[in-house]
Every structure is written in structure tokens, then in C-alpha cells.
């Protein structure tokens, strides 16, 4: 355990909390990008460089951009109203539920006899990863490829919507 790890953790959790609690949507997205970077930093610290780069590329690079677009696109909506009594009670119940989950998780972790091997991080080269992906995990890779394609098409269809402008499904 070292100070770097603690720092990474604190920053990540802190920005995440701020992002979730913030009033301004844009700020939230930016803060979240920070949190994702923190996660990437953790990966780096743990020795998983490739995962870290993937995290940065996908989350910080791609997803946060897409989310920003979405935020901008939906901006004209009647924005989140002032949190009325219903909103407050919902926030309260949400925090309670989350706290309960956290409590259970932490309790479970602390009670479990987890034997950590103190050795150095297993070294994984990108070549190794590539061989793994094209070897034993080829089928999974294909499946993910299909999934991404389908998701892409689905997203396009959904976002493009119907040309007529009529509401789509009548129940």
C-alpha cells in the first residue's frame, strides 16, 4: 500500500461524488472524465498499461465526448427542476440504499480472508494480449465485434428516429 494508490483513490472517489452531486450537467460530465482518468491511473499503477490506455481512449476520449454531445443536444429540455420534496426524499432514499450497499460490500471485503500475493505485477506485453485475443478468446472477440456493430446500427436507428415525426409506438 502506498501513498500513490491512496491519492488515486481519493481523487477518483472525490471527483465521482462531485460529479454525481453537482447541479450543472456540463460540470458533472467533465468531473466524471476526471474520475475515469483516475481509474486509468489506477490501472497504470497496477501494471495494466494496455487497460489504462484503453480506458483513457474509450472513456475519456470517446464516451465523454459523446455524452457532451448528448448533453448539448438535450439542453433545451425543461431542465432538472429545483429539487422539490419528492426529489429530496428520493435523493435521501438513494443515498440510504447506496450506503447500505457500500456497507455490505465493505463488510464483506473486510470479513473475507483475502490472501494477497505481494509479488510484483504480472508482466503482460501487448503482443501477449494480442495472441490471447486472437487465440483462445477469438470467439469472444468476434461476439464483441458483432455486438458493437449491432449497437452502432441500433444507436443510429434510435437516434435518427422516424422521418414522419409521428410518435413511434402506440401502446
Amino acid at each position, binding site marked *: 500500500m502506498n501513498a500513490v494508490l491512496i491519492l488515486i483513490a481519493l481523487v477518483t472517489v472525490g471527483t465521482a461524488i462531485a460529479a454525481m452531486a453537482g447541479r450543472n450537467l456540463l460540470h458533472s460530465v467533465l468531473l466524471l472524465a476526471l474520475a475515469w482518468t483516475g481509474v486509468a491511473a489506477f490501472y497504470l499503477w497496477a501494471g495494466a498499461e494496455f487497460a489504462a490506455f484503453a480506458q483513457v481512449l474509450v472513456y475519456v476520449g470517446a464516451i465523454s465526448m459523446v455524452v457532451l454531445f448528448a448533453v448539448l443536444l438535450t439542453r433545451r429540455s425543461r431542465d432538472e427542476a429545483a429539487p422539490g420534496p419528492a426529489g429530496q426524499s428520493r435523493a435521501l432514499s438513494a443515498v440510504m440504499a447506496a450506503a447500505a*450497499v457500500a456497507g455490505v460490500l465493505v463488510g464483506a471485503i473486510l470479513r473475507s480472508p483475502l490472501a494477497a500475493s505481494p509479488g510484483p505485477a504480472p508482466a503482460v506485453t501487448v503482443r501477449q494480449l494480442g495472441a490471447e485475443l486472437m487465440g483462445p478468446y477469438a470467439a469472444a472477440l468476434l461476439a464483441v465485434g458483432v455486438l458493437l456493430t449491432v449497437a452502432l446500427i441500433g444507436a443510429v436507428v434510435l437516434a435518427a428516429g422516424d422521418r414522419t415525426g409521428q410518435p413511434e409506438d402506440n401502446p
Partner: protein
Amino acid sequence: MIDAAHLWLIPALPLLAAGIGALTPRSGRRLASGAAIAAMAGAFLLSCLALQRALADPAAHLYANFTWFELGDGAVRLGWLLDPLNAFMCVMVTFVSLLIFIFSLGYMKEDANFKQFFCFLSLFAAAMLGVIVANSLLLLFISWELVGVASYLLIGFWFHKPAAAAAAKKAFLTTRIGDLGFLLGLVWLYDATGSLLLFDGGHGVLESGVLGDLATQVLASGLAVPTAISLLIFCGAAGKSGQFPLHVWLPDAMEGPTPVSALIHAATMVAAGVFLVARVFPLFAADQVLAAGPLHALTVVAAIGAITALLGAVIAVAQDDLKRVLAFSTVSQLGYMMLALGVGSWVGAIFHLLTHAFFKALLFLGAGSVIHAAHHEQDIRRLGGLSRSMRTTFVTFAVGMMALAGVPFVFSGFWSKEAILHAASEWDVSHLPFYATLIGVVLTAFYMTRLLCEVFRGAPRSPAAAHAHESPRVMTIPLAVLAIGAVALGFLGTPVWPWLQSRLTGTPIPARPLLEGGGLMGLSIVLVALGLGAGWALYGRRVRLTATAPDPLAAAAPRTWAFLGDRMKFDSLYAATLVRLNAFVAALADFLDRRVWGSAVGFLARFAEFTGVVNSEFDDGALNGGFNAASEDIRRTGRAYSRAQTGETHGYLRTLAIAFVALALLVLLGGVR
């Protein structure tokens, strides 16, 4: 010369006629009736040839078996049987049927479904002949059921009348109760012996080797296996032959056209039960070797027969419907036959069966002639005075009446009844049946006198009766022929010349001098005279004047009269118990189906529903403060599901979180590994 292997032709001919009748269009009246009568005549000729063959060697059982289909390592086999018992029955059935068919030509002339009637009649005759010539209890059962369905169709022939439709259903269901017993008896016998063939070169169920094996088997309750099987088979016989307590359908069956009543409910179908017991008599008698048995099958047969004989006779006294009097008299006479079987004299039973077929068919056809002439008036109180307008019918009916009443020496009924009385008096188990038959003799003579007087004497008591004319030749000639038979047939089996008996058993029976059992014969003559005299005194001397005048006996004992007139309330009793029990079970089954099983099976679904309810209650109650008024509806199945489906993503997520916590706590604290 006909052999057992050709015997199938006898039922096949009428079956062919039935097929022709079924396929001809409605207008093909001539073709359908012609085919039916021709087929019946052919069957009669074949039967006579068969009888000739059988009498050539009366002790032999000629049979021809064949494989129906393979089953397991063995096969299910059926066969045809020819012996004097069969042959006599065949001749009787074909002859009486032929006459009834001819009679129907006139009786049913105006009916729109004329050709259908002959089709059904032929089907019935074919099935009945199948019962007779079968050498396999399975084939017998098959034909037996076909007899049932044909009688169902014939009783309900005037199906547009609700009463006829109901009577047909009642007849079928009541006999079916018995038939189920029969079926169980069959499968038991099949299981116990591995065969249902009656004669099969030593392996048939009526042959001594098999019966001997069977008689050694005893159930845990102490009942011998042959006894139990016999009693189950007897259920079937009792159902078809209208024995107590399954006799209730027979009087109702009079809703059918009168030729049907004559054919089915006098000569053939109801006799099938008696024939069945006579056919498998060795099986019924197999338990006689077991002196220790708690019950002998034949004892039960005798008891049921005696009860039925007495019951039918008593009820017949108080009936006002022409056909119903005859119906109850049939019940009573069938009781006599069963009694004869029970006391061991199956020959006597068959003798009475044959004579009864003639005189009862005669009586029914006579009644039919009366009804036809009187425009379907059947109430004897509204008839009267027909002896003048319907001479032939009156004479033949009187012959039949005297044969039934057992008027001595000339009429056949006297001799056959005499044989039964003789056998009953010699039965060493109990004398009660004998006394019952004696009472029955008086009552029979009495109610038949009453019937004859009411219908034919005095003045017509309704316009229909007043305008009655003699029926056409096509109806009266069969009456005359049957009347001759009703007289002549008795002489085949008198004690002086027991030709029929010796031919049936296959062993010569020594003739007894007429007066050897003179005491008994004298007694029966006295009793018949008593009945006739009482009947004459009450109904003949003082003729009923109006249709509404009370019966002399009703005036004397109105409540008893009403009780008897209501057929001793058997139908009400059954309606109050069995029918109601049946309806209750049906309602219970339906209720279980609609309410209980669905829920029991859907328990898991209900559990899910319960969690849905809890979840929505939790939302409403704990978080939003206050129950929603609509929570009354929660208990309804679908509603509860949909309440869980709030459509609110947060709700789902929250449920997930709570469930996760609960599960995790369960794992952590509960120690579930």
C-alpha cells in the same frame, strides 16, 4: 350344412342391411326396409340350419377361433360358437325380429325417419346376434355394447320428444353402470386365466381345467376369485336385464316406438343378461365346489332375481300406462329367469326366456296395435271397449295375456313357469325365493286380468278409443304368428316330454309323469286362478265407466297405490342420491379446477406477485407516505404484476439494490455457504 366358422354370417347379414340403410338417402324407404327384412329372413334361415347342425350333436360345442390382433407374445383372439343354446337363441331372435320388422312396416308407415328406423333395427339385431354367437367374452362384450348403443338410438328414436331423449340417455347410462362391472370382470378374468375365449380346446374359460384352477384362488377377504368375477359379470347382466336395483331404465324406455319395446324390451336385449349368465353358467357355478366360501355367486343371482320378480309384479299392479304395465311385467319375468339361473336351473331360465320372448313380443305388438289404432293413446283408463272394434288384436292379446299369467296346460308360459317353480322349490339354500315366485304368480295373473279388462272391456272412454279400427294385415299377421308360438312353444319342454331340456344340456333327461310333482302344479294352478279371479272381481265384473273414476284398489289404499304408481319412488330416490352426488362431484371437480389447482400450480407465480406487492407497498408506504387508495385491487392477480411494473427506472434500480443488500446480508450473517 352350416358350421361354426360360417356362423358370422348370421350377424353379418343384418349388419349389411344396416349399412345399406345408413347409406341410402331418406327417400329410400323401400330399399332400407326391404334389405332389413330380407337380411333378417336370411339370418333366420341360417339360424335354422345352425340349429339343425347343433342338434345333430347337442353335447358338443363347435367353435371357430381366429386371431384379432397380436399382443405381446400372444394374441387377442375371438371366435364363434355353435351349440344348442346359441342355436335356439338365434332362431328365436331372428324369428321374433323378423315378425317385428314386418309389423314395423305398418306401425312406422307415416314416420319421416322410416328408413333410419330400419337401419337401427338391423344394427340392433346384428349386435344381438353377435352377443349370441360369440365364443369370446370380449366379442360378446363388444356386441353387448353395440346392443346398448342400438337400443339407445331406438329408445330415443323420437328424439324431438325431450322425454324420449332423456329416457334413451337414462337407459344407456344405467346399463353402462352394469357394463363397467362387466368390463372389470372381463379384465379380471383375462388377467387370471389369460384368455377370454369360452371354448378353446381345453384353454377356454368355461372348460373344466381353467375353471378348476380359478376356483382355487381366494382373495384376502375370503371371497373366491370366480365368485368375484361372476358377480362383476352379473352386474352387466343385471343392467341389461333390468334387475333390481338397475331396473329403473326399463319402464322409461317405453318412450321408444312400440315395435322397439317389443323387440328390445321384451324378446331380445333384456334377455341378453339372462343369456349371458346362462352362457357362462359354469363360471358362476365354479365356486360351488368351495363349501367354505362366504358367498356363492349364484346365491346373489337368485336373491336379486327373487327381489326383482316380486318388485316388478307389485309395481305393475298400479300402473296406468299400457306399456308400463307390460314393462314392469317384463322386469318381473326377467326376475323369474334370473331366479331360475340362481337356483341352478339355467335350462329352465332359457326355456322361460324363449316362451317369454314370444308371448311378451306378442303382448307388446298387441299394445302397439292398440296404440296405433287409438292415435297414441296409452292410458288404460282412457281406452276400453276395444274387443269389438279390434277383434284380432283382442284375441291375440288375450292369448299372450294368458300365456304370461300361466293359464294351465295350453299356454307356453305355464310350462316354463312351472319349470322355474319346480327348480326354486328344490333349492336347498333358502325357500324365500320360492315364496316370492308364488306371490308373483298371483300378482301376474291379477294385473294382466286388470290390463285386459281395462283395455278391451266396457265402453270406449275417450274419442280416440271410440274411433279405433283394426290394424292392417301387415300388423295383425305377425300377431297371429306370435300367438301360435306363444301356445305351441310350451310343448317343447313339458315334464312329460323334456325335448328342449335334453337338447340344451346335451344329455337325455328322463320324462317325469305329469302328476309326479302334482302338489306343486296344483298349487300354482290354484294361485293363477286366484289371481285371475281377483282381477275379474275387481275389474271385469264392474267395468270402469269414466276415465277419471278411481281405481278400486286406489280407493281402498290411496297412499300405497300412489307409492306403487310412483314406482316405489326408486327414481326419486336415485335423483335425490346418485344424481345429486354426481352433480356434486362434478361441481367439486370444476371448482377444484377453476380455483385450487390453478393456484397450487401457480404458486411460484403468486410468490413473485407477492414480492411485487411488497415492493409497491414499500414504495407507497415507506417512501411516499401513505397508501394509495387503489391498493384494494392489489390482491387481483394481474393488477399486482402491473403494479410492480411501475415503468420507473429508479424503482427497478432501487429494488435491485435492496435485493442485493438483503441477499448479501443473508450470505454474510446467515452463514449460507
